[in-house]
């Protein structure tokens, strides 16, 4: 039986569609979910199928609408709340951190808040200061929230289904540049639950952990590294909270070298957590060398040259990994290769 192919967009859409068919308590809303662009197609067809009661656009009110989602959940619904930019979640932090994350605990287990919050990270085409942030470390920081950052169509669908079925608040981190990516996409519903990172390429010299879209860069970096005889193991954590520290540590126990590539800032970021958790775990067992890569420690500039410098790329990741392996600044930077360039995103948005 040949596997079906589909895009990341297809995975997200199908997950919500199938869960809404299965479970009448699932509802989906957010700014523009029902507009002609349907969140880049990820909510296409839902309103036609399930009606305006279960699928609806909202006023601009990130704070209250997050609270509305929580109230729905308290009443037994399973809301999927969609945001076109993760940056806008900064308006919803009070509801997410002070309420959603804490309700189960502070009400002594008598309630649960099964909400799913989808949000997109933008990159390239001059998204600029306020349309480019990967702020998921904020959600990892707080006990009571789960965080998924799937990197391929299969996991987009599986994580979304797992998120909807989870009895706890789950943040779905979706990188806009992954949306057109295609890959195997099984038709029948399935869950990709938290707990297990995935090894995507095996190698004994260095472990590359790539978060969200940074994983795609790590996979390209792995090919650059192979060209110079460095064997990189590439790991996709898939879920950031709970995080599979053991899985990552097992790889690092083998390679002794860890490069964490994040799609956000490094200071107090996911890369700081992964690096320190792995080092705490392996200390006394294995001498480990580590490198964190992420956004430049600046605001994201829209002008193309600076924007390119702002992000780690396959080439800068490969260079950093090789330096770590050789234990010195080699000065090497791989040449561009035609088969390792991201499909360019072209505007207006």
């Amino acid at each position, binding site marked *: 039986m040949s596997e079906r192919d589909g895009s990341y967009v297809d995975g997200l859409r199908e997950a919500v569609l199938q869960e809404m068919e299965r479970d009448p308590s699932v509802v989906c809303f957010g700014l523009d979910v029902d507009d002609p662009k349907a969140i880049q197609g990820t909510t296409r067809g839902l309103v036609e199928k399930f009606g305006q009661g279960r699928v609806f656009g909202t006023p601009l009110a990130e704070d209250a609408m997050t609270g*509305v989602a929580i109230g729905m959940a308290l009443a037994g619904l399973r809301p999927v709340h969609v945001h076109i930019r993760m940056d806008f979640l900064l308006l919803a932090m009070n509801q997410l951190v002070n309420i959603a994350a804490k309700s189960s605990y502070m009400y002594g287990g008598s309630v649960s808040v099964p909400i799913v919050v989808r949000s997109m990270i933008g990159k390239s085409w001059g998204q600029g200061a306020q349309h480019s942030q990967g702020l998921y470390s904020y959600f990892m920081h707080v006990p009571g929230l789960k965080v998924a950052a799937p990197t391929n169509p299969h996991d987009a669908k599986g994580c979304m289904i797992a998120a909807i079925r989870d009895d706890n608040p789950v943040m779905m981190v979706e990188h806009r540049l992954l949306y057109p990516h295609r890959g195997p996409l099984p038709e029948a519903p399935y869950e990709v639950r938290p707990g297990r990172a995935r090894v995507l390429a095996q190698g004994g010299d260095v472990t590359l952990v790539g978060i969200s879209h940074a994983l795609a860069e790590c996979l390209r970096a792995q090919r650059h590294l192979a060209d110079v005889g460095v064997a990189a193991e590439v790991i996709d954590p898939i879920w950031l909270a709970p995080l599979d520290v053991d899985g990552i540590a097992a790889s690092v126990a083998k390679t002794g070298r860890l490069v964490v590539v994040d799609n956000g800032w490094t200071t107090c970021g996911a890369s700081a957590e992964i690096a320190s958790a792995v080092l705490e775990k392996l200390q006394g067992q294995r001498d480990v060398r580590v490198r964190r890569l992420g956004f430049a420690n600046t605001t994201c500039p829209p002008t193309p040259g600076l924007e390119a410098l702002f992000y780690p790329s396959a080439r800068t990741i490969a260079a950093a990994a090789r330096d770590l392996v050789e234990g010195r600044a080699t000065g090497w930077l791989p040449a561009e290769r035609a088969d390792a360039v991201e499909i360019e995103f072209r505007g207006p948005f």
Partner: protein
Amino acid sequence: MSEAARIYRQLYRIRRVEEEVARVYPTDVIKSPVHLSIGQESVSVGLCEALRPEDAAFGTYRSHALYLAKGGNLRAMIAELYGKATGCAKGKGGSMHLVDVAAGMFGASAVVGTTIPHAVGYAYAVKLRREPRVVLCVFGDGATDEGVFYESLNFAALKRLPVLFACENNRYAIHTHQRLRQHLPEICARAAALGIPSERIEDADPFAIAARARAAADAMRGGDAGPFFLECMTYRWKEHVGPGEDYALGYRERSEAEPWIHGDQVAKVAAQLPPDERARIEEAVEAEIADAFAFAEKSPFPDDAELWTDVFREAP
């Protein structure tokens, strides 16, 4: 029971529970902040008189009155204040986070304004499922400064949701008078501008509140009438947080309180009842309160392992 008897029982019970809380507080059996409703009881009592058991209510950190009026378990409340394992939140919530799902008493939050959208979301679910229920959403005048108040009302109005918004206006946010926070102190006008019919009740009369709330609630049950907004003027007799009085602080005069203390709704309703009925009610309530404090007193504290439970709801 007559309406007056029912209302009196509620008023007296809440007043006496809080007086007991205030009495024991200096002994440090309650090691967490308490925001008393003494003086404001009639608002919650009047509102809940209009509700059915299956209706839901959302409140604030000052929700002892609402919790009890809505039918929350008294033993579990006192045990919660004492931090005991038998508390309504197993000691993990405290006075500011009272909850009793069986009684329809949801979320009380310490962050001002935060439960307003919860009530709206709950009402969305109720309406989607065409249930003939309503949701009561109680908050202070301070909450009407916050943006989330407007966003929530706007959405409730847009979707014609069965929410009874009730602002308990005691004129103060901590020590700051409404006039120092709002140029026009017309909260009803704010609701009206968003498309929500509104009305102010000046004297905290629980019968008037109950009547208005009942009319509004019954009109919106199961239909498209949409939300209603009630502003209930009232007065907090005690300090913002804690068991004492605070007229000496200087931010308000005792003379401002006096009309409210003279017009005390607990005493007013008491006067409407035949003395023997009143005595019977009071006696039963006193026994219940004594039992609840004794229950809390002798309940165990949570085990250490409880620190780690309930962070996540585990899959069944």
